[in-house]
């Protein structure tokens, strides 16, 4: 499969033009084309929110005319949207903090302590990559039910932390290993213990990796669907993805409002990503190399 992909890619690209390394008009054209394809459905959602249902029915692919802000105002003034936004935010931040703290601690052990069972411990987390949440969802739901955590955000947060740990460990361990031993020796000569070294040197130095894993955890939590679908049955505890779906089926005739609700619910993740996107590419570079 890999060979096939690779050859197909190569044949496509063979002998088009001279080496340049700089963009030609064709490059810009293809980039532009790709961006329009990527953005068109998103724009459809955002612009659709500015239209009326009558406009959408008579001309489904048209632009707003006149622009109608009523849908957005309605959504923004509804308490249900803000409650779900709050729930998503709580779940997102709690998951991120949990993943980063637990992940950094265990990665530090895996990267910088020598002890028996270290390989097994790493393998345990690495094997976690093979356990997607979909496979475990039914028993996970039963477990959460037994713990009495259904309809509470904690029932979503704890499993999310657990399932985000493997990626976090795999990204962070190479980061922490790359910190030179000399630094640690210098720190211990200056009287810092292992833990002192952890808080004073490791935490700041591993920041790029931490930010990457944090963003991935946050976006994963913000968008997660199957877990809240199973755990949260009460509309008051819904996170935004469930809210969007409930809203879409409840107001299925009011397409414009559904589009407004949908586009508002994607804004936070987009902002979060835009601010930190450089870090993501940087962090992935480290992970891919490792």
């Amino acid at each position: 499969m890999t060979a096939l992909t690779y050859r197909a890619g190569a044949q496509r690209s063979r002998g088009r033009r001279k080496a340049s390394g700089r963009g030609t008009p064709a490059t810009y054209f293809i980039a532009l084309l790709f961006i329009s394809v990527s953005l068109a459905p998103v724009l459809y959602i955002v612009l659709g929110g500015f239209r009326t249902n009558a406009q959408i029915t008579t001309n489904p692919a048209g632009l707003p005319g006149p622009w109608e802000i009523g849908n957005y105002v309605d959504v923004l003034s509804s308490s249900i949207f803000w409650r779900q936004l709050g729930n998503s935010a709580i779940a997102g931040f709690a998951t991120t903090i949990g993943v980063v703290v637990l992940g950094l601690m265990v990665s530090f052990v895996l990267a910088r302590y020598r002890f028996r069972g270290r390989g097994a411990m790493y393998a345990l987390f690495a094997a976690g990559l093979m356990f997607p949440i979909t496979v475990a969802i039914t028993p996970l739901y039963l477990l959460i039910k037994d713990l009495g955590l259904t309809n509470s955000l904690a029932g979503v947060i704890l499993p999310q932390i657990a399932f985000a740990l493997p990626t976090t460990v795999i990204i962070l361990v190479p980061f922490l290993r790359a910190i030179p031993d000399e630094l640690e020796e210098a720190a211990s000569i200056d009287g810092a213990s292992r833990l002192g070294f952890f808080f004073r040197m490791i935490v700041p130095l591993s920041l790029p990796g931490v930010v990457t894993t944090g963003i991935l955890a946050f976006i994963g939590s913000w968008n997660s669907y199957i877990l809240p679908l199973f755990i949260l049955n009460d509309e008051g505890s819904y996170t935004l993805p469930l809210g969007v779906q409930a809203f879409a089926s409840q107001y299925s005739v009011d397409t414009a409002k559904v589009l407004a609700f949908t586009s508002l619910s994607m804004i936070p993740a987009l902002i979060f990503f835009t601010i930190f996107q450089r870090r993501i590419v940087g962090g992935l570079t480290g992970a891919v190399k490792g």
Partner: protein
Amino acid sequence: MNTTVKTPSPASSAEATTAGSGARRAPLPAGRRGARKAADWRQRFEIAVLSGPAIVVFVAFVIVPVGMAAFYGFYKWQGYGPPTDFVGLDNYKIIFSDSAFHEVLSHNGFIVVLSLIVQGPVAIVLALLLNQKIRGRGLIRVLIFVPYVISEVIVGTGWSLMLQTNGAVNDLLADIGLGALKSDWLSDPKIAIWSLLVIISWKYIGFAVILFLAGLQSIPEELSEAAAIDGATYWQIQRSITLPLLGPTIRIWAFLSVIGSLQLFDLVYIIWGQYIASTAGTSTMATYMVANGRNSGNYGFGNAVAVVMFVISLAIALIYQRFVLSRDTAGALTERPKK
């Protein structure tokens, strides 16, 4: 915090730092053996404190549920009280003789193969193009990642509205004179799975591009510069130098893509719902599991489906690791990665 900084003498902590497993066994002068032992216990304590919470959470919410699935899969069980109705392999017999499950398998297979064929080459070419020094590169990267960042629910809601029979896509086709191509994109069983493929590719190709861009950045520029001096053309350089060096990244992406395709749930469940997916020909193993497990109250059966899904994914993952990824991850999973 304060006490931990003070207690160990500089010498003993320096030893603890540099001590490999070999050094630990080295004979010590009698007076220092006590300090060594203390450092040993200290290290054990630190390991326990630092790794304990993560291991507890991970085992409780990942490993235990997977184990429970294997256990419940042998029972006929409605989810109330402890399971008592042991049925052995009956659930598995039903799964493998159910024609609906065979369909589901073929849908998953279709998505696995075509996702690789469609997304791989396109993403590689795009990553090569975007790796050039073009203007607005940062902005372009953000924009192509947008579909990946927004949630499956939003993607599903937006696309299902666009692809409705009287939706934007058909309207657009009519407007540009291709009205003959208007179709029931979501409900026609011949077309629906292709629509699903388009939506999946649209959503996940940005991730492939970003991953490949990250891989390209770790390839030293000197190599292509040297080749250019020797008279190689741009595309010759890409083919003979860049692509082979990008190999590990491509193989990891393919692995992630296959696993993702096998577990596909959100988009199908959101767009087609639990009932229409099978008639539209887009149901997957995961939607089959939810529809026949939790939604019909057969938790034992649902767990058995989960086990089948897991075994299939694991088998594919292990085979892939063994034959394709072995040279890339030989270090990553066991040893210190070379860096």
